[in-house]
């Protein structure tokens, strides 16, 4: 179990071929057996979708699909569009099977209009970095106060 303040990482070794794992990562019916209770994702770059998991409904926007290797999407709870995060799934072959690495990272709000206006003219990556350090500073202060 690893990750930073705004990122979690998990990995899993599976005794399946990469092609089979890819199908489990990309086919909505297969995704509905493990990613959530109801899954409908058009797994192509720019594709949309939704995932219902544990009574949380998320909207999905697929960002990157590298056939057989890597998928990333952005998703956010439908009733909390400011809490968008990016999920990245990476498949690598290993002797006898595959390894799946998953990273979910909290990102600066991409989906709210006022936030979009606020970032016009600025570098999004710089904002994300500064936002991260600000959140870390606030998180550290919150931890101190909680003690």
């Amino acid at each position, binding site marked *: 179990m690893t990750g930073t303040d*705004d990122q*979690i990482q998990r990995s899993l070794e599976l*005794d399946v071929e990469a092609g089979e794992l890819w199908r489990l990562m990309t086919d909505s019916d297969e995704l509905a057996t493990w990613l*959530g209770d109801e899954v409908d994702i058009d797994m192509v770059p720019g594709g949309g979708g939704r995932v219902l*998991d544990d009574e949380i409904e998320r909207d999905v926007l697929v960002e990157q699909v590298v056939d057989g290797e890597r998928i990333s999407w952005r998703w956010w709870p439908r009733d909390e569009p400011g*809490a968008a995060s990016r999920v990245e799934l990476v498949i690598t072959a290993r002797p006898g099977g595959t390894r799946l690495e998953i990273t979910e990272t909290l990102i600066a709000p991409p989906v*709210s209009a006022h936030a979009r206006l606020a970032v016009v003219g600025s570098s999004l990556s710089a904002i994300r970095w500064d*936002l991260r350090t600000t959140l870390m500073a606030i998180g550290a202060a919150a931890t101190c106060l909680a003690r």
Partner: protein
Amino acid sequence: MPDPLDAVFGALSDPTRRQVIKALLADGPGTATALARDLPISRQAVVKHLQALDAAGLVEGERVGREVRFRATTAPLTEVSTWIDSVGPQWDERLDRLSRRVP
């Protein structure tokens, strides 16, 4: 009704406002005048940013004489830590389901 977390991120999407809140976190509570001394913006601009942060619940003002002293509040950010605390277990459950799905 606007989403509270949306308001928090909206307020923090401005670099100057992040500077303001970082200054309040680093140096403790301060007035708009004091903040304007330390930051490269006018007192008037500081006041506007403090109003935006106040609306998002990220600062709290307390009247001290003729001025209002602001302190950074962390309550809205507990939602962020909730996000972080919930994401890990969610993936543990998903990967557990995936492991059981795979023969």
